[in-house]
């Protein structure tokens, strides 16, 4: 089987590759997105904790 035969998928290339392409994009995004979400949560919480710390210091002064 040649490469072009393989990519042709017996004439069903459009259907086969768009199925797999859609799966790749969708599942890839679902997989990667929590990495960014977690990073942004940590960033937010760092700011929040720093503010709390500052307020605590101000109230004790």
């Amino acid at each position, binding site marked *: 089987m040649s490469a072009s035969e393989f990519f042709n*998928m017996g*004439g069903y290339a459009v*259907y086969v590759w768009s*199925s797999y392409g859609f799966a790749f994009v969708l*599942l890839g995004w679902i*997989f990667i997105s*929590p990495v960014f979400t977690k990073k942004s949560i940590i960033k937010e919480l*760092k700011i929040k904790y720093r503010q709390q710390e500052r307020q605590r210091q101000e109230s004790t002064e």
Partner: protein
Amino acid sequence: MKLPAIVHKFSSPKNFYTMSGKLVPWFVWSFLITLVFGLYYGFFVAPTDYQQGESYRIMFVHVPAAWMSMFIYMVMAVSGGIGLIWRIKTADLMASVSAPIGAAFTLLALVSGSLWGKPMWGTYWVWDARLTSELILLFLYLGFIALQASIEDPRNAARAGAVLAIVGVVNIPIIHYSVEWWSTLHQGATVTKIDKPSIHIDMLIPLLVMAVSFKLYYIASVLMRARGEILRREQNTRWVKEVVENER
């Protein structure tokens, strides 16, 4: 019924965070290995179908995705129920973070099914029982996500979501038996039949490997989502403060 104290201790958000952090890489790697093997087998070893030609190779993504869409729904409903009865925060969390993954698999099952239906049935969509009940499953997931997003108090959001998820379980047997109960274009079950599966062994192997791969994907993915969400929900505890401060 009361759960033993060890269950509560084991499922505490802090313990969950530490344990899942160690487990995630194992699931990611075993997912990738099974994925490569499953795709290789599915494209290069599995023979051409005598009726459907090469188009049937959509099955290796379509069928596992459809199985996952139902499996994740059951996980969501059961863990929602556990959260409802025993008030285990981690169970509520698992239900919430499973929903987007389940919705993605449902959408994938519908889209890949459509792309398979066009060349085989001559249409992208028919309003028959199998396709319609799977579409309802997508709406149940989206309803669950929207409902939880609209309730600010996490306790109430978890409770409302769990009730919705449990009621929606009625749809799962409808999806499964739809091909037997109503006349449809969709083919019947080939793998989960009582007698021998009516599928060539070299088609069955990649199908099952892909199904395992998708399960591993789900576990890795749900743990990663849960770890982020846990920090947000437990942000007022000392341990989360320590975790956050130790991150660069």
